[in-house]
């Protein structure tokens, strides 16, 4: 037995208008400083009669951010929370929505936890409006927040963390800066690939993984070049890839990226971009059959396609290679403790991860020279 979960999804031009159904509700718009300065908040609040805005810090999301948000929302008592921002804002809102009701340590929010036993009743609806194309957080039941003190990313997940509604409106990504197009695009790409390769993959997630992969491979470069249609397709495919991995899982690429990201502060999308192909090469050498199945379904060689995109977007210029090299052992050790390590096609040994990291370093150096 397995199951398939997805929010209700509104997508395409003007999909934000759907918020008018909530115009009489007491709403909180959760966003960050960057989005607030872009005037996107008024694009949302104009559809609501009774809303106020809570602004969180624009940074890698931390457990403290979610706790602070929960406290604010307990005072406001909203009927609906609208998370407007990238994956960081949405993850903080997902955790904040649970923590405002449940008396629970954030790290105890796991797929196995009965939130009801901690007082969670799900009184407040959550609507997510992504302003980047990549994390898929608007459509998943996962939350990734940093534990600053321990310099590690905490993977939380619960069915009740998933937003009830995701509004995937391209208006919010047409003017997205280049670095976010790149990091988000690699994040979406890695979600689609890892969802298909996961030991939890299933016909529903496969369908979304493969179709989002086709869209991403066809549109990533053009989206970077500013093509509006390509950017819209990337926005939709990022959500599709999010649903795919939420109903399958991500694996080793994400375990390594979580570890490197938390230790070295590498943006998540760039970290998964750095590790994606070296992990796939490792899988290919180990004869992972699903990799061949993916290639056959797509009618191409995924490794070569990713190399093409990496080269075109000069991914390696953004990777702090010497830091990765000097922290190789620590990254591998922490990745082995990441819950994503068990959901790939097989569980690697720590030495395997060190080999993968070595490949990342070699590839970056080769590109630099």
């Amino acid at each position: 037995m397995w199951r398939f979960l997805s929010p209700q999804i509104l997508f395409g031009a003007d999909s934000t208008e759907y918020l008018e159904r909530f115009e009489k509700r007491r709403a909180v718009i959760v966003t960050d400083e960057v989005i607030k300065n872009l005037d996107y908040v008024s694009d949302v609040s104009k559809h609501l009669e009774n809303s106020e805005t809570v602004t969180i810090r624009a940074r890698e999301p931390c457990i403290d951010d979610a706790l602070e948000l929960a406290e604010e929302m307990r005072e406001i008592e909203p009927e609906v929370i609208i998370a407007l921002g990238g994956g960081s804002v949405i993850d903080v809102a997902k955790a904040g929505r649970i923590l405002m009701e449940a008396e629970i340590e954030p790290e105890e929010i796991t797929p196995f936890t009965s939130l009801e036993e901690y007082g969670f009743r799900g009184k407040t609806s959550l609507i997510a409006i992504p302003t980047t194309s990549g994390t898929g957080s608007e459509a998943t039941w996962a939350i990734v927040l940093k534990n600053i003190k321990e310099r590690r990313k905490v993977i939380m997940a619960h069915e009740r963390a998933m937003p009830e509604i995701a509004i995937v409106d391209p208006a919010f990504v047409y003017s997205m800066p280049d670095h976010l197009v790149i990091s988000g695009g690699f994040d979406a790409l890695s979600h689609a690939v890892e969802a298909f390769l996961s030991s939890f993959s299933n016909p529903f997630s496969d369908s979304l993984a493969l179709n989002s992969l086709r869209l991403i491979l066809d549109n990533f470069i053009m989206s970077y070049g500013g093509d509006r249609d390509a950017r819209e397709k990337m926005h939709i495919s990022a959500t599709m890839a999010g649903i795919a991995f939420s109903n399958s899982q991500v694996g080793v690429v994400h375990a390594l990226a979580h570890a490197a990201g938390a230790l070295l502060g590498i943006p998540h999308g760039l970290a998964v971009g750095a590790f994606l192909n070296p992990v796939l090469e490792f899988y290919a050498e180990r004869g992972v059959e699903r990799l061949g199945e993916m290639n056959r379904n797509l009618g191409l060689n995924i490794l070569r396609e990713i190399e093409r995109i990496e080269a075109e977007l000069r991914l390696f210029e953004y990777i702090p290679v010497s830091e990765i090299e000097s922290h190789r052992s620590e990254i591998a050790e922490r990745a082995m403790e990441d819950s994503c390590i068990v959901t790939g096609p097989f569980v690697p040994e720590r030495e395997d991860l060190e080999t993968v990291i070595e490949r990342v370093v070699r590839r970056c150096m080769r590109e630099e020279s």
Partner: protein
Amino acid sequence: MPKLFSDEWVREYMKLLNESKEYEDAAKDWEGDFLFVVEPDENLDKPMYIYLDLYHGKAREGYAVDDPSKVKPAFEFRGRYSNWKKLIDGDIDPIKGLVTGKFRLKGNMAKVMRYARAAKILVEIARKVETEFPD
């Protein structure tokens, strides 16, 4: 062949666990004891329990339990007999089993999430114990 959740079964399970370098590595910092509970269903008329104390990559104590109120473990993992049988036969993934409610876990969830690999190995080793099922 030892009967499921008998003392003999636990001894064999502990032996295999303590021989596993893979488990030792994955659980090297783990501290926490478990009560495993098999709940009765149409193929089992009364519950079965085993206690297992896992510490730093080794199983240091384990036995079948008659009265569960006499143990105070940090963690409890329970499910119906038919689901246990499928788990040990390799027909249920333990994580999927927990997510879909076939099994329930009590204890410090955050800690368990950091030892996902050790948990997977624990189940893989249980599958290696030649087991006689009650039905």
